[in-house]
């Protein structure tokens, strides 16, 4: 089973509650997953399903109003929940690299690129300023930025979106992290650049043997770039398995719905109606009971309202939370 061999990150029963004016918002509920070295786990779902909150929990960057509970949240055996603010801050950028969606807002506009790269290296006490410079130079070469020396003395606004995202990747790799969390790394980029950046991430992940969590809403990105997939809905992982299993034989109606929603050149008929999931994502405030997808589900029954959301096996390393038998929702029209 992939992921079983010595995972870098283990998350067991992670819950994130946020106090909002209307009550308690259960942003993440009972979420468990593992990522091993050299493996990419994609977390996919619609906005508001808890994917970013899950990532922020791992980095302990949750907003102040949010409370985090987890039976286990360990990086290489170190419990992240028990670390002090100072200790977790030492881990970020060192053991955990981060790549965010919008490279313009995550780079400091008033510092030169070289200084921003070196700062990470120096902050974590990895070596001298000269070594930091060399490492920055080497990594810019590695991520495909030509003329690295000149680029190091430029400011972020002088670079294109694709180059800035390459910069972010170089930044995440400065201290050779054990885990990279990439939150929508290609959403702000053009399609041609998107494929290049994903290819680069895959190559570097192999080269540095890093574990990666890829957060995205784009099923195409997931299918092409991930080893394993966790589909999140309303704060819960509703289906998880290898990318091949999940896309070719989805067991949860939500996964099936998502796959049917996207037009697929050559597979869906041009101009035909797309399968849409009716309704919208439910509110996560207050007491939540049963399967939260039941109001939008074509297969919903009365017993769904009291479903206890246990994970059932659907195949080798493939699990889902639904009362239906795993082959009930049928093969998706695409991806097979």
């Amino acid at each position, binding site marked *: 089973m992939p992921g079983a061999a010595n995972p870098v990150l283990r998350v067991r029963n992670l819950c994130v509650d946020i106090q909002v004016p209307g009550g308690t918002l259960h942003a993440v509920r009972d979420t468990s997953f593992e990522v091993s070295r050299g493996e990419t786990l994609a977390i996919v779902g619609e*906005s508001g399903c808890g994917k970013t909150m899950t990532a922020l929990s791992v980095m302990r960057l949750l907003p102040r109003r949010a409370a985090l509970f987890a039976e286990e949240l360990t990086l290489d055996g170190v419990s992240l929940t028990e670390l002090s603010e100072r200790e977790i801050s030492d881990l970020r950028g060192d053991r955990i690299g981060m790549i965010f969606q919008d490279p313009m807002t995550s780079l400091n506009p008033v510092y030169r690129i070289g200084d921003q790269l070196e700062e990470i290296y120096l902050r974590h006490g990895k070596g001298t300023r000269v070594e930091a410079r060399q490492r920055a130079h080497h990594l810019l070469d590695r991520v495909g930025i030509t003329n690295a020396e000149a680029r190091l003395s430029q400011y972020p606004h002088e670079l294109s979106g694709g180059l800035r995202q390459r910069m972010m990747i170089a930044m995440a790799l400065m201290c050779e992290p054990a885990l990279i969390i990439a939150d929508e790394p290609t959403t702000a980029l053009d*399609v041609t650049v*998107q494929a290049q950046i994903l290819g680069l991430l895959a190559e570097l992940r192999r080269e540095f043997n890093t574990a990666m969590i890829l957060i995205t809403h784009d099923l195409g990105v997931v*299918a*092409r770039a991930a080893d394993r997939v966790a589909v999140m809905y309303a704060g819960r992982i509703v289906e998880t398995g290898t990318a091949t299993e999940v896309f070719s034989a989805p067991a949860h109606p939500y996964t099936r719905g998502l796959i*049917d929603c996207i*037009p*697929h050149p050559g*597979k869906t008929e041009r101009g035909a109606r797309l399968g849409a999931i009716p309704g919208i994502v439910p509110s996560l405030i207050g007491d939540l009971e049963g399967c939260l997808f039941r109001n939008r589900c074509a297969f919903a029954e009365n017993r769904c309202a009291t479903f206890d959301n246990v994970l059932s096996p659907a195949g080798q390393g493939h699990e889902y939370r639904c009362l239906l038998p795993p082959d009930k929702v049928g093969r998706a029209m695409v*991806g097979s």
Partner: protein
Amino acid sequence: MMVTATAQRPAPSTDEAPVLECEDISRRFRVKSRLFHAPEFIHAVNGVSLSVPRGEVLAIVGESGCGKTTLAKMLLGLLKPSSGTIRFSGAPINEAPRAVIARQVQPVFQDPYSSLNPRKTLGQIIGLPLLVHQIGRPSERPKQIAEIMDVVGLPPYLVHAYPNQLSGGQRQRVAIARALVMKPEVVICDEPTSALDVSVQAQILNLLQDLRRDLNLTYVFISHDLSVVEHMADRVAVMYLGRLVELGETGQIFDRPRHPYTETLLKSILTPDPGQGLPSFHVDGGFPDPLNPPSGCYFHPRCPKILDECSRSRPGLVSDEYGSVECHLHQNEAIT
């Protein structure tokens, strides 16, 4: 469910004048002017000719910065072309007042969060064009608003709601209702679904298809998502650095692309097929600097099929029964 609703597109009739026509339109922006220096210009749109028959969906694709949105703004009358003519049903609009243009062509923009006034109710938002253009008697307006809300699938009780009470999909329905209340002939959809989740995207795409069939609308559909374009469009126009480099029937473009840039775009589509991996293709560097466009064919520095003459001379636009293409590889096909 998906297969039965087959595509029933009305064949675009050819005997009348195209509803929308632009002839060799260009738009340049002055970007730098210093004392005693000649001002510098960006040619955002550079000699584009298009004609859209009634009932057609013409998609415009290309990377950011290729001039898609500038072209859309000119078609909407929001920007005047620097040169060239735009015609609606045969009548030039260059000198026409905005109010006249607005009755024929209406926009749906990308972001339904910023394109709706947060302090107006839906009724006010949808009714504003009627008020501005003095269409119908004031006593009839609530009925007109109710009708159009029904058409786009908004429940009647939302007429007094404010945009912040709506989901993203509902907001985009409001934007569509506001465009359609004018009964325009052409709707310019500028990335209408890229801010939406996939399940909502499918709902909106289905709605746009239904409206087009029922109201015999013509769409100019701007998108960077080629899977969506393939699904929606009858014809596709590919733009690169302000120029129209290829135009053709959707099937033709997707099955037998002729311009190397179109091929590159198509290869970068990430369909949800796990196991296929990431596309590897040769496109060096990023998008060129529009202030100093490359010599000859603008695409030649990134082109995998570069010929000797590509850097020396700009290819002419070659048209045949399959469409038109601007590439040295296809220069000889014109004579036949």
